[in-house]
């Protein structure tokens, strides 16, 4: 077999074509992996965006972001009581997992609360200010403190350090401005059901 015959051979041509293509695509992919390199861990960001950002530490992590990092590295998704079932479902959707019930060890789902300092009793020790993870308490040493209600996440962390027990967690109730229509309930009956209800 001469050199010319070798290159005109179908098999050789095929192999050469695919080798060339393989090489080209390899270069392309190599370039893309450098050019479009993703910095950081986007899944942590996505998980963090779903967490309620209460920063309460009930999941036994010091804040929502550390828990997001822990979830990304395989921790259970059911340790967030403030987020509750809703957050668990959204996390399960994001991570393609089965939703689990909330882990009771870390707390139970409670209605949203806001901290309130009984100002007459406050001695100005600044302990709650240091405990607040979102800097929602205003005050200075030996001066009265108060909670900025709009910024309070209701995490509870200020209650424990208070030496005079003057912090209450007040449940957020619906007022005329936050009220909204509710979906009609139990509409899955048919008209004849209603008639029999009346007859009975």
């Amino acid at each position: 077999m001469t050199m010319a015959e070798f290159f005109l051979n179908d098999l050789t041509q095929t192999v050469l074509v695919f080798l060339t293509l393989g090489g080209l695509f390899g270069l392309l992919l190599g370039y893309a992996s450098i050019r479009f390199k993703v910095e950081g861990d986007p899944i942590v960001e996505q998980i963090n965006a779903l967490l309620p950002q209460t920063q309460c530490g009930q999941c036994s992590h010091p804040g929502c972001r550390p828990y997001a990092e822990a979830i990304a590295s395989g921790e259970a998704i059911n340790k967030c009581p403030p987020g509750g079932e809703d957050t668990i479902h959204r996390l399960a959707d994001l991570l393609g997992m089965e939703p689990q019930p909330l882990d009771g060890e870390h707390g139970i789902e409670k209605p949203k609360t806001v901290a309130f300092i009984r100002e007459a009793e406050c001695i100005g020790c600044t302990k709650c200010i240091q405990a607040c993870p979102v800097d929602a308490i205003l005050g200075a040493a030996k001066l009265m403190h108060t909670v900025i209600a709009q910024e309070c996440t209701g995490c509870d962390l200020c209650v424990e350090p208070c030496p005079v027990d003057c912090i209450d967690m007040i449940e957020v109730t619906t007022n005329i401005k936050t009220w909204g229509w509710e979906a009609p309930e139990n509409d899955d009956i048919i008209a004849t059901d209603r008639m029999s209800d009346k007859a009975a």
Partner: protein
Amino acid sequence: MNTAKHTFHGGIRPLEHKEDSNTTPIEIAPIPPMLVLPLQQHSGPTAKPCVTEGEYVYKGQMIANAADASGASIHASSSGYVVAIEARLVAHPSGMADTCIVIETDGLDAAIETSGHPNWRNLNRVELLDILHRSGIVGLGGAGFPTARKLNTDSIDTLIINGTECEPYITADDLCMRERAADIIRGCEILKYIVGANSVIVGIEDNKPEAIESMGKAMPSSPDWKLVTFPTKYPSGGEKQLIEILTGRQVPRGGLPANIGIVCQNVGTAFAVKEALEDGKPLISRITTFTGQALSRRGNLEVRLGTPVSYLLDYMGYTEQKVPRLIMGGPMMGFALPDATVPIVKTTNCILAPDTNELPLPKPAQPCIRCGFCAEACPASLLPQQLFWHSKSSNFDQLDKHALDDCIECGVCSYVCPSSIPLVQYFRASKHEMRMRRNEQQQADKARERFEARQQRLEREALEREATRAARKAAAKAKAAESSRFADEADPVQAAIERAKAKKARLMQQSQQGAQMNAESALDSLKTKLAAQQSTLQQAEADEKSEKITTALQASIRRLEQQIAESETKPPSKDVEE
């Protein structure tokens, strides 16, 4: 007069019932014994009371300040004493109480001194908007959006005056246009001047021939002013629908009419604007339709804001029904009042008191049969059926994709549904839920930012503390070095130890090397000394020094000779040991 060339998608033609209430002229309602003025009668921040309990207030006196530019102020609608500022049941679908200023009227109806601005053209836009803002003018069509804020926009080309009043039963705007067309047009001129519009279009449905006639007469004959009529169809009066009818243009999703150079105002609002500017009269009354078979007299009343509905119902001859149902607004978009004691507010265009046959309770909902009537009828071109499924399963992503935000809650879908599904209720609930979720998300984002900012601050503080400590340490060391005797030594203690070691080593070396050498050199030096002493002695004898000196020298020579003899006989001890 023109007829509109465009129309909007869908819509319905329900029974109008307009003739129930539009045959009698507008009547001025009497002053009630008690006025209840809620602080929230508009969309935007709640007004702040500026009177105290027990204070006497005059008609037209401001009793609550607008919280900011996006709010609206409240004025006393008659004279009397403020007896309470407390939570009272208000006209709201929630049936909740809200803070109200309660005035016990004295019947004198004494008005506060005010002066209008008949020459309002001499004022600039900011001043005019300020007057409207202080007069508490809000959109009287339904939503109660503060007018000054709505007009505070640039690049407006067309002013649309909404005289549609498409909802069944309501005739307040109809009567207002019939009787007060000249004032409405004056108001329109003010509005046109404020927004700087080039043209004004007044849109009226063709079921109000009297209103069309009187408005046509009052309107200036200029090419800039157009009166456009269009066929009666619900909900032509919706802002976006009316814009499409009159101009053929659609407001972009999530946008405002101002985005396409249009601003819409209701005819009632135009009238209120005229009164506020030319007559100096704040918004303290409005025209409200009283209709329904449960009333013996039906018609339109000019009522003072804050008048309890029950008082007016009595005035119109209300017969209590077996299942009493009072609706504020029309049958399509209105809501059932929690109680008849609630007051009339700025947005109350109608009180509907139907009897049981007139407006039967809704039939129970049956399953969706996918007939698609709702999609055909939807004036916002949405797919109510899809929205219904997604609402039921709380699939908010899909609801967003299907543009639930564009739903105007007109109730057309529920009206046409052959299965009587209360579709609009589902949409209202879902819209509320989505709004809540958005708020929660915003709050969570804010909390995250604050948390991260705090973490950064703590880290920075820790670093700063560390840096100060290091700096302090360095400073202390420098000071110690300066004051030390051993300035060139790194550590004085160590240096002392080193010095001691070096000395010891040197001594060791000396003793090792020099033990023998010492002995020899000592002998040598002794011999030299001996020689020196002997020569000194000879010198002394020769010089005939005193006997004492020679004796001493002889003694030291003897001692030296003795030492030399000892050294020569005794070997060095160190050498022996080693």
